[in-house]
């Protein structure tokens, strides 16, 4: 996950929008549009047939002090302290080091709250065709699930679903929005406390 996306996540905490976990997506949508300025660059990948977006921004403001912290084991705890989304590069379903850090925290949280069940949704940006993106979203969701299972989470606790390009969290039609919309979203289905 790149710096820009970390900033978005941090902003969500700062604005307190992340605290209401039952309907997370509209809240993030508003936040995703907020940070400015943003520099968008395109660099060639090894294959030379696709471009990869790099989104950078000024370092995030220190925000943790402003937040008192959600109750451990709650949906808000998972959202704020663990992180519910990992972000994929264009056309890819590979996890980078940042993504793996988030998934390690997810796995640890799931070990702490063994009643919790999750649904991992795979999402794609709008710059692909519908059916291929459904397949790609499924591949992304499975990548997340497989990694959590490799960390010891019981596969029976993890459902997956693909939304293809049907569930964007950022409205825009630009590199920044597309980077946000290529994600694996872990939703707690049941078993959270408080």
């Amino acid at each position, binding site marked *: 996950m790149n710096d820009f996306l970390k900033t978005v996540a941090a902003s969500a905490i700062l604005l307190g929008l992340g605290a209401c976990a039952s309907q997370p997506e509209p809240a993030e949508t508003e936040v995703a549009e907020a940070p400015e300025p943003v520099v968008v660059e395109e660099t060639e990948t090894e294959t030379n047939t696709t471009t990869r977006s790099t989104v950078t921004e000024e370092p995030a403001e220190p925000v943790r002090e402003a937040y008192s912290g959600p109750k451990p084991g709650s949906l808000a705890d998972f959202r704020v302290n663990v992180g519910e989304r990992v972000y994929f590069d264009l056309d890819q379903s590979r996890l980078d080091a940042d993504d793996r850090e988030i998934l390690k925290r997810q796995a640890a949280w799931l070990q702490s709250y063994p009643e919790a069940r999750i649904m991992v949704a795979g999402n794609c940006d709008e*710059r*692909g*065709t519908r059916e291929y993106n459904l397949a790609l979203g499924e591949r992304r969701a499975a990548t997340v699930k497989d990694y959590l299972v490799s960390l010891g989470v019981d596969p029976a606790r993890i459902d997956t*679903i693909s939304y293809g390009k*049907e569930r964007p969290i950022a409205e825009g039609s630009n590199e920044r929005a597309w980077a946000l919309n290529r994600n694996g979203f872990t939703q707690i289905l049941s078993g959270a406390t408080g």
Partner: protein
Amino acid sequence: MIRSFITALAMALAFALAPLQLAGAQITVNVGDGTAKPLPIAVPEFNAEPGEAREYGDQIAEVLRSDLRLTGLFELKKPEAFIQRDLDIGAEPRFADWKIIQTDALVVGETEMLPDGRLRVAFRLWDIYGEQVMRLGGQPGRQYVTTPENWRRIAHKIADSIYTRLTGEDGYLDTRIVYIAETGPKTARVKKLAIMDADGANQQDLTSGAHTVLTPRFSTSDQEITYMSYEGGTPRVYLFNIETGRQEVLGNFDGMTFAPRFSPDGRSVLFSQARGGNSDLYIMDLRTRQEEQLTSHPDIDTSPSMSPDGRQIVFTSDRGGSPQLYVMNRDQSALTCPSGGRDTACRITFGEGRYSTPVWSPRGDLIAFTKQLRGRFYIGVIGTDGKGERLLTESYLDEGPTWSPNGRVIAFFREARPGAGPRLWSVDLTGKNLRQLPTPTDASDPAWSPLLD
């Protein structure tokens, strides 16, 4: 002479279908530019007694003119210019009067309310310069008797008769299009199954919008469709009967099922199933409900479409590193690829860019696709052997081609610019006659019906 128009049109079609063979030529948009000029045709008011019969006659003539205009092949003569005002379906028109206004073809029609309440509609098509009636199915004219509510269908049927008589092609105007009606913001989009006549009339929603629905496709019957829905949590392929409203899930699969499409004989549905992150192709026989796995490859295989003879399947796969089109035999036997080697699936797209959503033409010789290249999307066609790629359209997002049942026109959806909602469009196989189809809301995933009964 009308004969020369037909010849010119046939030549234009032949040209459009021929592969681009210029030495070193680049693929360009709108290759195969139709050379036929639109044929001048006059559609005067239908004869009728004042009252109901005349009202239906006026409406039928108006829809008929609109249909002929939609084909892009006709120039409709303005009624104000008409000299002869006493046309009679039983008598020869005064050819000289119609030659003066330079019309090649003339439609003479009449409507009548029968004592039993039904509507009778008759018409004849005249070749003005040839000074003779153009026979339709061996008859000097054609007549329909029906309940008056069907007047619009009659207009489409007359349009198809004229189109067929003057082009030698099957008609496509008496058809419907099923699509996804979209409302609401991008991040909370409501998607309903909807249907309309091919000219945009008779708009109707088929689902409530409570669940996201995607990618509807018609069966060989105009009443049965298959599509994908998120109803019930796991996304699944469903069958839906338009007439009865009856809906059923297709089969009992562990994973997501998606990308459904009927086989051309209507007896089976091809689709993808995703399991453990990988998508493969399947086919299910609708009578026996037996499924068969068609591919088992570790990369994505999706969007299957069967050839009209039922022997081959074209699909999208990223087994080569990016989405491209592949052809395989229905019986999974090896085939000789365009590259010369033998394999169970042959890649047919080698141009720059990504290719997906292949749809086999009803004529069997072409495959329509969506192409993505350097931030632009295109609708194009390619020979089944991978030769003769032609791009027909280009925009920010053009996706999801569907063939008219005669294989002459392709409908698709377009987001004209970033942030613009999708709308339905159609384009001729020549790359000409690009038109937006009227829908009350944003719309995507069009699928053209067969000719109605």
